């Protein structure tokens, strides 16, 4: 198990290095640079921009810039953000907790909702309820995420102004609120984005969980349980769900990457200052070091997610625990598709 984890970590670092290089090259080859966009004023002489390009080393050849960047990273310096006028690490440090709060809440919500929907569907298998819930998950599953976010905003923030239209807190009042009121303020801002993000993933989890439940439903021990005269609900929740939950739990790790991507749109629409909106803005502003830092974080999350998924998978299935030497490296390096 330990050697497996070590191997996966080495793999993750290699992948992160490759991702960094790839992003660095791609974004530097793209037209535009961070200074062009931030100094669009006729009164600014071309020489001023030229000076700042030199200060940030943007006038050097690409390999030189890359080496400079790498030596910086080696020293733990992710660079200086031109568009935020502060070190990249400060930008990241501000954004990551916001994303974690949003994605974390959505994760919990989506698993709770997804599993619940699946249990109801299986309990009522073949009925109208089952099919209606199935259609609803299919619908949720087919929504453009930014569209769902915009419609949620339109409905619950503009037409029925129940929730605020964006941000993590009320910037005006929040500093002056007591602890309870401050927490409530946070929750009010979290509801729409978190539910939007959760809805999309809940559908996927429900579909998966339903299939897993139906799969175990045919197993012998359930027949035994039925023979013992236990009620269908008890069988479903106590026995079937317990067994069918394991594969779903492995989704937990996998869904991290989905959350990272989904968060990009949801954060943008709700003005949630997390890593997703920082990344998108940085691409638009050609803020190179910020883009690279965000991609690294994204790839670390994805790697961590698939590692967690693999570990859970191995815990769940003793056969795989023994087969850890498999060259493929566990369950999810194969699942890391899409």
């Amino acid at each position, binding site marked *: 198990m330990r050697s497996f984890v070590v191997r996966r970590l080495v793999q993750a670092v290699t992948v992160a290095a490759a991702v960094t290089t790839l992003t660095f090259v791609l974004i530097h080859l793209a037209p535009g640079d961070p200074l062009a966009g931030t100094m669009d004023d006729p009164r600014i002489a071309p020489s001023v921009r030229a000076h700042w390009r030199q200060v940030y080393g943007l006038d050097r050849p690409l390999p030189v810039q890359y080496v400079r960047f790498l030596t910086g990273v080696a020293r733990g310096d992710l660079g200086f953000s031109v568009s935020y006028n502060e070190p990249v690490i400060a930008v990241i440090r501000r954004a990551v907790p916001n994303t974690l709060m949003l994605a974390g809440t959505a994760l919990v919500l989506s698993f709770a909702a997804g599993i619940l929907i699946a249990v109801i569907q299986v309990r009522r298998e073949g009925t109208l309820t089952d099919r209606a819930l199935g259609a609803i998950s299919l619908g949720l*599953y087919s929504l453009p995420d930014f569209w769902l976010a915009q419609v949620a905003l339109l409905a619950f923030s503009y037409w029925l102004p129940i929730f605020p239209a964006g941000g993590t807190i009320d910037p005006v009042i929040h500093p002056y609120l007591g602890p309870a009121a401050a927490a409530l303020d946070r929750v009010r801002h979290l509801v729409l984005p978190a539910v939007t993000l959760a809805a999309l993933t809940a559908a996927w989890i429900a579909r998966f969980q339903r299939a897993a439940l139906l799969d175990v439903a045919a197993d012998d021990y359930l027949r035994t349980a039925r023979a013992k005269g236990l009620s269908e609900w008890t069988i479903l929740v106590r026995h079937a769900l317990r067994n069918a939950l394991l594969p779903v739990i492995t989704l937990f790790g996998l869904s991290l990457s989905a959350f990272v991507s989904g968060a990009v749109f949801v954060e943008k629409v709700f003005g949630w200052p997390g890593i997703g909106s920082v990344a998108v803005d940085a691409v638009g502003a050609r803020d190179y070091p910020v883009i690279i830092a965000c991609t690294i974080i994204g790839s670390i999350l994805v790697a961590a997610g698939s590692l967690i998924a693999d570990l859970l998978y191995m815990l769940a299935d003793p056969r795989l625990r023994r087969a850890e030497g498999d060259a493929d490296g566990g*369950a999810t390096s194969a699942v890391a598709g899409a």
Partner: protein
Amino acid sequence: MTVTRPSERGGAVWVPVGPRDAAPPERERRRPAYGPWRALWRRYRRDQGAVVGLAVLATIAAIIIAAPLLAAYPPDVPLDIIALKSQPPSWLHPLGTDPVSRDVLSRVLYGGRVSLAIAVLAALTAATVGTLYGAIAGYAGGAVDAIMMRVTDACLSIPRVLLLLTVAALWGRLSIGGLVLVLGFTGWFGVSRIVRGEVLALRDREWAIAARALGAGATRTLLRHILPNVASPIIVAIALGIGNVILLEAGLSFFGVGVQPPQASWGTIMQDGADQVRALWWLTVFPGLAIVTTVMAVHAVADGLRRAADPRSGYGARP
């Protein structure tokens, strides 16, 4: 054994997991040329949801093909930039007009052509690239396979939206062809993994070894014997890819990367109203509904195909 997982933005791709011996039964594989399509269709037909999905999809296809007959106005031409700008839905303009006074219904009808054409072409591109890449990796095995798969790992671990935005930035102005290529070339990683896994498992089967022993070259073995056996997961992947690309195209338009004005796609119509959702809600809501309906139908068809292709499995199964 299969596991679905969400793709970057919620669609799913079919990926094999777990022990290799759980691939489709030998029996089907031995006679790939004999009637599998008819059997597939027979099983597909039994699935009510899938049939409804197919019907909806056919209707949508018919509507957008008939767009010139159905659209009351030209889609790209302002009608009256002062009197008819940003009109809410009315009898004359059932879905309203946009800020430059174009009829939204006409734009949605024509935009569907663009969105769907992009989706189909990009999904096919992705499937082709992914199949070739995966087949080569799986067939070669060893170090080549390891390196090729690490490359896909790296690409996969960049959130697709960011990868797309970066590549689009690199590209500058994107024609529809460019958009197809960008979407296609960032969407093949999943397919390549499926194909690679299948090929890896199939390449050492008796009949594949036998084919090689009879003097068939690597290319021939791959094309004639192995690839036909992975056709059904690829087809499912294409179907899901279409749904996925429709969503992605809309998402990219949201970030200002989309087809060139004045042409419409479902994504760009929404983009025209994106920062005025409050005042011009019809620009966001209606094209969005068109997308949801289409993608739902596509997913229903993909589900049906999957169930029909591999009747033993539901969605996912324990290993």
